[in-house]
């Protein structure tokens, strides 16, 4: 399960145009070669699934998804 405040990097094949990027209003975007890299923080797992569902719904091809979580010293 992702912990709150985790950073995500999502690589998608192809250069996303303005319309497709508007599907990910909370994420920053960057074009690298023939790929689009989305970065941003996602609140919880349902936000992550929401982004994945958008990618799928738009017929985009997901190459990679990475999660970077800040160290959490309040482990239960």
């Amino acid at each position, binding site marked *: 399960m992702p912990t709150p405040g985790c950073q995500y990097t999502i690589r*998608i*094949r*192809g*250069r*996303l*145009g*303005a*319309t*497709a990027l*508007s*599907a990910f209003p909370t994420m920053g975007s960057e074009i690298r*070669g*023939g790929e*689009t890299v989305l970065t941003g923080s996602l609140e919880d797992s349902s936000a992550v699934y929401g982004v994945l569902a*958008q990618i*799928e*719904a*738009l*017929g*985009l*091809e997901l190459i990679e998804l990475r999660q970077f979580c800040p160290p959490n010293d309040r482990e239960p």
Partner: protein
Amino acid sequence: MKKVTVISAPPGSGKTSLLRAWSYHVTKDRRIAFMSVPRDQRDAQQFWLAVVDAIRQTDAIDDSRLPAAAPVFDGDAMVDAVHSALAKAAGVVVLVIDDLHELTSADALSQLEHLLSVLPTAARVVLSSRRDPPIRLHQLRLAGEVAELRADDLRFTASETRDLLAASRISLAEAGAAALYERTEGWAAGLRLAVISLSGHPDPDRFVDEFSGTDRAIGEYLMAEMLERQPVEVQSMLLRTSVADRLNGELADLLAGRPGCDRTLLALEDANAFVVSLDAQRTWFRYHQLLADFLRLELRRTLAEEVPDLNRKAAGWFADHGEIVEAVRNTLAAGDWPDAAELLADHLFSLTLDGQEGSVAALLRSFPARAAAEHPELALAHAAVQLAHGRLDEAASQLTQAESHLQSVPPARRGRRAVATASLRLALARRSGRFGDVVEQVKELDMSTADGLSDLIGSESELRAVALMNLGIVETWSGHFADAERHLTEGATLAEAIGRPYIEVACRAYQAWPSVSLATARRRGHEAIALAERHGWGDRPMLAPAFGALASIEVWVGEFAEGERLLQRGWDVVQPDVDPAVAVLLHVVTGMLHGGRGEHQSALEALTAAERAQSLLSGAHILGRVVAEWLAAAQAHLGLPDDARATLDRFSTDDDRMDAISLARAAISLAEGDPAGALAFLGDVRDFMPPQGFPAYALVEAQVLAGLAHLALSDRDAAAAAAEAALAAAEADRLIFPFAMYKAGGLLDILSRRQTAHSALLADVVDLLRGEAMPRIERGRRTPTEELSPSELRVLRFLPTNLTRPEIAQSLNVSVNTVNTHIRSIYGKLGATDRGTAVRQARELRLLALGRAAPSK
């Protein structure tokens, strides 16, 4: 074809097109039931109703037994119904479920899994989904019964790509076709989009060059291209109509702001341009999800300021056409949470009556987190959802919020909101068994409805029907039978008039209570069950009161086997979280049945359970007194007189005469060997009255107990007189149960050599007490060729006795010749040759056992 076919491939792979093309190959022996799961379907019942609808449209199945919408959804029963419909279908039925990935109800998925595991031989199922459906198929896979199609199987090959281009009259150089194939990797949606853009393109090869040279995400690129190639008015229509999940020409015209959109939609579907019609008449359409998602993004990007207004227009249209879930969804999309909350609150009952709690719950989740605080009318919807799930405490707290908000509701809406709140409050109080509160609320409701209800009948009739139903139910349980009768009849009539059969059945299920006459109650009970069965609701909890009441009637008249069958059906339909008021009824009838059969230990257990269920109700249940009486009687029979007295002390109240308690005290004395004490408790038995709403059993029971006491005191004349009086009191309804419960065989024996005016009844009672169960009627077996006339029935009653023909003639004050004529006629109609056969036939046909009631069919 394998039993199950799974098509699992990403969006735009051509799954739906493949299925639709294949579905056209309908033959007489193979019919296709096609359904698409709508977006984000969380409601199991809605899913299954769509399945049922698809099956119904194949015309392969007699649809009278297929289920309809209901507030309480029983998934297993639904699967059974679908299963038996498929099993009975003429020829092979292929059930095609498209877009299965949109089904997010775990219940529905596991029900579907169950259906697949028990699929009838002649049925086939095709599942189409973007992902492998979360359904275990390994058993079927091992049996070689699963065919699977994946993205690779659906991909266009290079030569198919060339065929597609040729068929679309697009001339491309060989290199161009190859480049197009390479770039799209045979992705069906990509090729289709490319074809749409290429049709009529002035320089197709240049398009392919640019397309191949770009790094833009292929789907987005092609969608944008496709949209740009459309005439301006088509672009505008596509963008503006994308706010609706589904649309017809009228709605599209409204959103696009121009007429004639239906032609545009038809043309787009014909051009294979990601527009899909939803019905055979092609009046409803939806956009392919790839297109819909793209259009919504593009709309938000380019025409953001119009989005709320378009949603409002769609919401208004849906609301006007009774599509409340869609209306609320679009209102929410417009960001108009107060309006959405009002809309939801105003139509809540209608939604729950259609069994859409799942959709209501989903809509509630779409409100922002703070909405509950800002929009107190949502509390009503929350309360309904919680109540439907049996979470009574949560429902109560939501309802309290709804009530505290009521005064701030504008007067125009306050009336109906008050009725809605009061009805929910009633349902909650009823369900929690707080009859005291219910009675209070009944009064309040009567007041709040008196001034404003007459004008609500048109627009808010379903609220009124629900209110009447709840009123009638609590009035039944609290013994206000005249009011219950009035309200339930009115509720059922209204429900029928406004096409709410579920409420009609629920009202009628409570009208089998024998507060009228046994014959009327029996007829009503069977009618309620028949009505429910016509709608496929024969196994619904709402029928439990009808089954319980009918079972009690059969036990009263000594038809224990039939009573047991009906009682079992009653227990079968109730759910584990059974309404305690209904549980009291079923436990009491269980106790009656055991008591009548002399199984006093089992009777004691059942009646103890009844007392326990009763204790969950804070108000007095109408059955409370007989629970006390019969529990004490069972304890007395088992030699536990102190327990029996304790039972009576627990139940006794001072508020009115408790003949039932006196009867039990007499029974205890009798069991303790104190017949004089028993007679003292009975006093003047002639005015013993049953609790209101019961058959006239108290006098029968009092005379039986008095007779047994006299017999114990060796006063045979007094005993015989009491026995005759018991039979006289029992005759009208043939109340055999009291004789069975107190084992009155010895008492009745002293009558057998004396004159009695109730010989037929006496014979039946004696037979029952000797353990000679009356013969069972076999279903569909012989019926009298002609019904017996009333005077023949009167003579028939004497046939089981040892009276001679002259004696019968004397009893009936007719001539012997008349009796002979009647007997010849009876033999003829029953196909009997002698008195013994005639009596046996008459018993099997229940001509003797039904009392004065007409024989039921």
